[in-house]
């Protein structure tokens, strides 16, 4: 099975050329590769299985089904009408077919009857006969309207995959219309519907709404400049891609629109921007909220740092054609650049990281070591020498240049130790490296042996002994923006789960704190906010997660895979490079929180009240209601679920007006029912009570798109020119053309339209419409969703939807 390798791999030879022992070891490993044990029958058996399957799977056919014409029947009312359901629709529970006779063509679905379905779950349909696949694909329908694709694992099994994650906490019906035909020409006796419900969205885990600011080199660094604007160290063009704005993204959204509308020849505030023409060469750019981007450097940089002092406060490491770097300092807007390193006549080196040390010195990293250069005298001081064979890529500098994380492999003279440190993840203790004659730490192995070790080096005290950060690795180490904390991932070992640990840089040998609820997926990148209150995890193919370090609450998730990420100075936004673009996302608070925040305590009472309604807890309802309000009478019985859709707070009157949805899930042959109620809470003393409750009777859920949630975000937090973003999430895939400022409107208490900044935008992946206005929403403001909004099946809301958003 294997081929004899007589020649040493030239790539390995080059890669390891500076370490003959590694070359020898690599050659020995290659030559001694264990030969796999193979059952000779397996290859043939699997081949037969694969080819047999291929004869079924590879038959040419249309792969995608998007809303067949048949779906344009008034199917919503057909499917959901109790009367017709009894007459013509067979309901399946738990995947078991109730109606057809054994000889009939039948279809089943394991998902049927499940109530906690993952939004990413595909839907498998199993037929009892080989099917005419095109007829089945034309006969499929999902309510709420959902675009999907169909693949066949064999002629009897279809896998229906929604194009976007299913809506959370929502009832779904998948229907196979009776026209579905077997290969023998037999059809289903009736339309067949399977019902299931998706699980609720985890509390506090909103999907980040990111805005695309422009192109960025995949390996560029994202940053926030001295004025608090996002930027990137290497960008070849700053125009946003058409339609790239996918979310509100706070100030970035307006900035993006302003740029797109600028005229050719516009100059940037710094006078160095290239107008509207794309940059021909990569540049360092920052993106103000309004106006054109600012070119901070006409050459791309590998590292950037800002100081707050007077004079020069921008430092850049600019790579040269010969592989070395030049360190340049400039004014905050990039003007008056001055090269300060290397000095004339001295050899240069690639700079992988830099930081300001006070206002007059730059600390930087090269493969040779960590050095400091004085901005005015250009005097260079070596702070910490690195091993001659290392690349220094794993060295991470604290933003204040006072500390550095250095992987063990980059520390010269590292000696082996027979002892292993205790695992902080397991024992809660930390280990400090043993000092030798020089401040050289000893190499150690983690319990599982699954991680590299690295050390925290105090650059301000070159005599200090580096401190071991057990289990750490260069790719997953981060300092907080104020340099007070260092965090790292201690990888999973045998019987020890992955953990994220943190210590103060001022006391690195203190017992590490374990950040609660780290991701279960492998962490590929780690980023801390300014004060370390927030943490962002890059999870490789699993995307991005932002969480609070205090309690592990997830603040936002994204499927983007960031290569570089930076928190804004106020920690309310992140800038990151992913997929060749620079993105900015607001770390959105949970729905309704900005408004509810002005009515502290009301949100909890609202949640408790709706939960008590669903549970039928009359005692709790009475306790939460003001005297004279009998909530138990108005609350329907037999509820399955309920949740708040929106809330608006009026701090002047200390009242909260909320819209909540109560749901009875379909069961057996009965269709589901729903009602949208209005709840008013008022503050009585220090507590909140329900003072009004208006709950219409339950009714069959009508066809057409429905609003699942309304969230309000004021951004930037505390900024001078605030904008308010309203996010409206639907249960159905919508026709983007139906999303206009006439179909979704914001009105004040008197019914006057509030002027929106540009038309609403629609994010198909989250089914969320974004509306933005300048300033804050007035008291009593409402969102109105008109009946012209259309889903992909042509369905419209049965009535205009109105919900409070103002406060």
């Amino acid at each position, binding site marked *: *099975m*294997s*081929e004899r*390798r007589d020649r040493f*791999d030239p*790539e*390995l030879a080059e*890669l*390891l050329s500076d370490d003959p*022992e*590694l070359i*020898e*070891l*690599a050659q*020995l*490993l*290659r*030559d*001694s*590769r*264990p030969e*796999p*044990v193979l*059952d000779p029958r*397996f*290859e043939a058996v*699997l*081949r037969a299985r*694969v*080819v047999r399957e*291929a*004869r079924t*799977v*590879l*038959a040419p056919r249309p*792969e995608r089904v998007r809303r067949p014409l048949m779906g344009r029947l008034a199917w919503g009312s057909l499917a959901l009408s109790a009367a017709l359901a009894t007459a013509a629709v067979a309901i399946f529970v738990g995947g078991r077919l109730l109606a057809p006779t054994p000889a009939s063509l039948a279809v089943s679905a394991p998902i049927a009857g499940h109530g906690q379905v993952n939004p990413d779950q595909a839907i498998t349909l199993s037929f009892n006969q080989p099917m005419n696949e095109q007829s089945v694909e034309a006969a499929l329908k999902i309510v709420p309207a959902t675009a999907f694709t169909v*693949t066949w*694992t064999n002629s009897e099994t279809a896998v229906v995959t929604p194009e976007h994650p299913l809506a959370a906490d929502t009832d779904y019906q998948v229907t196979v219309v009776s026209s579905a035909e077997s290969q023998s020409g037999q059809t289903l006796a009736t339309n067949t519907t399977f019902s299931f419900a998706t699980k609720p969205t985890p509390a506090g885990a909103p999907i980040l709404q990111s805005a695309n600011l422009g192109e960025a080199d*995949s*390996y560029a660094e994202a940053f926030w400049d001295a004025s608090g604007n996002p930027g990137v160290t290497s960008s070849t063009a700053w125009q946003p891609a058409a339609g790239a704005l996918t979310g509100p993204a706070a100030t970035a959204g307006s900035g993006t629109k302003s740029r797109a509308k600028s005229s050719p020849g516009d100059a940037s505030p710094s006078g160095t921007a290239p107008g509207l023409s794309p940059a021909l060469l990569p540049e360092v750019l920052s993106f103000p909220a309004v106006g054109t981007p600012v070119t901070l450097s006409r050459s791309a940089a590998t590292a950037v740092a800002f100081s707050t002092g007077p004079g020069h406060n921008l430092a850049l490491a600019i790579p040269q054609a010969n592989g070395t770097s030049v360190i340049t300092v400039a004014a905050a807007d990039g003007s008056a650049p001055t090269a300060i390193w290397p000095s004339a006549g001295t050899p240069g080196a690639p700079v992988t990281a830099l930081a300001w040390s006070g206002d007059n010195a730059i600390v930087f990293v090269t493969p040779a070591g960590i050095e400091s250069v004085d901005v005015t005298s250009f005097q260079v001081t070596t702070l910490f020498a690195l091993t001659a064979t290392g*690349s220094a890529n794993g060295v991470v500098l604290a933003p204040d240049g006072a500390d550095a994380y250095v992987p*063990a*492999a980059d520390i010269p003279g590292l000696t*082996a*130790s*027979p002892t292993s440190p205790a695992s902080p993840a397991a024992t809660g203790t930390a280990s400090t490296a043993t000092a030798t004659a020089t401040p050289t730490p000893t*190499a150690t*192995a983690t319990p*599982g*042996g*699954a*991680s*590299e070790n690295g050390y925290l080096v105090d650059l301000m005290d070159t005599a200090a002994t580096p401190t071991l950060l057990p289990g750490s*690795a260069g790719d997953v180490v981060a300092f907080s923006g104020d340099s007070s904390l260092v965090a790292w991932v201690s*990888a999973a070992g*045998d019987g020890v789960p992955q953990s994220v640990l943190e210590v103060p840089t001022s006391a690195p040998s203190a017992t590490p704190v374990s950040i609660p609820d780290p991701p279960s997926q*492998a962490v590929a990148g780690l980023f801390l906010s300014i004060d370390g209150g927030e943490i962002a995890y890059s999870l*490789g*193919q699993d995307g991005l997660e932002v969480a609070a370090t205090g309690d592990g609450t997830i603040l936002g998730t994204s499927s983007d*895979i960031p290569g570089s990420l930076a928190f804004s100075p106020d920690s309310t936004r992140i800038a990151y490079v992913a997929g060749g673009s620079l993105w900015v996302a607001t770390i959105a608070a949970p729905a309704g929180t900005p408004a509810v925040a002005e009515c502290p305590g009301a949100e909890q009472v609202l949640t408790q009240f709706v939960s008590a309604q669903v549970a039928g807890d009359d005692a709790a309802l009475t306790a939460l209601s003001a005297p004279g309000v009998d909530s138990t009478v108005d609350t329907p019985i037999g509820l399955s679920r309920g949740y708040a859709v929106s809330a608006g707070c009026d701090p002047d009157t200390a009242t909260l007006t909320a819209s909540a949805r109560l749901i009875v899930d379909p069961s057996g042959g009965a269709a589901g029912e729903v009602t949208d109620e209005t709840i008013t809470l008022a503050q009585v003393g220090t507590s909140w009570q329900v003072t009004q409750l208006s709950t219409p009777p339950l009714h069959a859920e009508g066809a057409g798109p429905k609003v699942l949630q309304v969230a309000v975000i004021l951004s930037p937090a505390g900024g001078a020119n605030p904008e308010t973003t309203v996010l409206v999430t639907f249960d159905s895939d919508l026709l983007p053309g139906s999303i206009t400022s006439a179909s979704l409107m914001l009105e004040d208490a008197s019914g006057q339209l509030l002027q929106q900044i540009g038309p609403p935008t629609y994010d198909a992946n989250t089914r969320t419409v974004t509306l933005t206005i300048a300033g804050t929403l007035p008291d009593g403001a409402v969102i109105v969703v008109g009946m012209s909004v259309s889903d992909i099946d042509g369905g419209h809301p049965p009535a205009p939807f109105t919900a409070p958003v103002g406060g």
Partner: protein
Amino acid sequence: MTLPRAYEDQLVERAKTDADAFGELYDHYFGQIYRFAYSRLRDQDSAEEVTQEVFMKALRAMPRYRPSGHPFSSWLYQIGSNAIADHFRQQRPQSSLDAAVEVADPARSVADTVVESSEARRVWAAIDSLPEQQRTAMTLKLGEDLKLAQIGEIMGKSEGAVKLLVHRGMIGVRQRLGVVVAAEEAL
């Protein structure tokens, strides 16, 4: 043996609708994928399970396959790499540093320890104790002789990042073997 690129491209295109062409792809790549799976898993049953999963997933996704400029095998390795990661998530690997400890002989240098092929095969267990991504990069480079760029395609990383992973992996192997020798010398 590497298929001529032009022939491979034609074969891959045919395999989107032709079961026999897919069978030919299977014939050509079965050995590589099984060996890769076995190198990572060191267990015959697990390697068979992953190999089957790779070809079945590839078959189902075949109509959507788009050439990336890299050999078709990159895509299969990519599927295999994900399947192996899933396997490890479900079940921790058996090999660990402990396995490497067994092979170390304190009377010899690291290189001497590795020289004898019967022991050298077991020294590969040291690779198993490396971090996940280093392990994958090392296996593809040292076990499969793939180009760094192709490994980058498989792992979704730049060539530079793969270089770093391999370099660190090599240092890690040496360090682990060194630690083992030192540990035994101390006994």
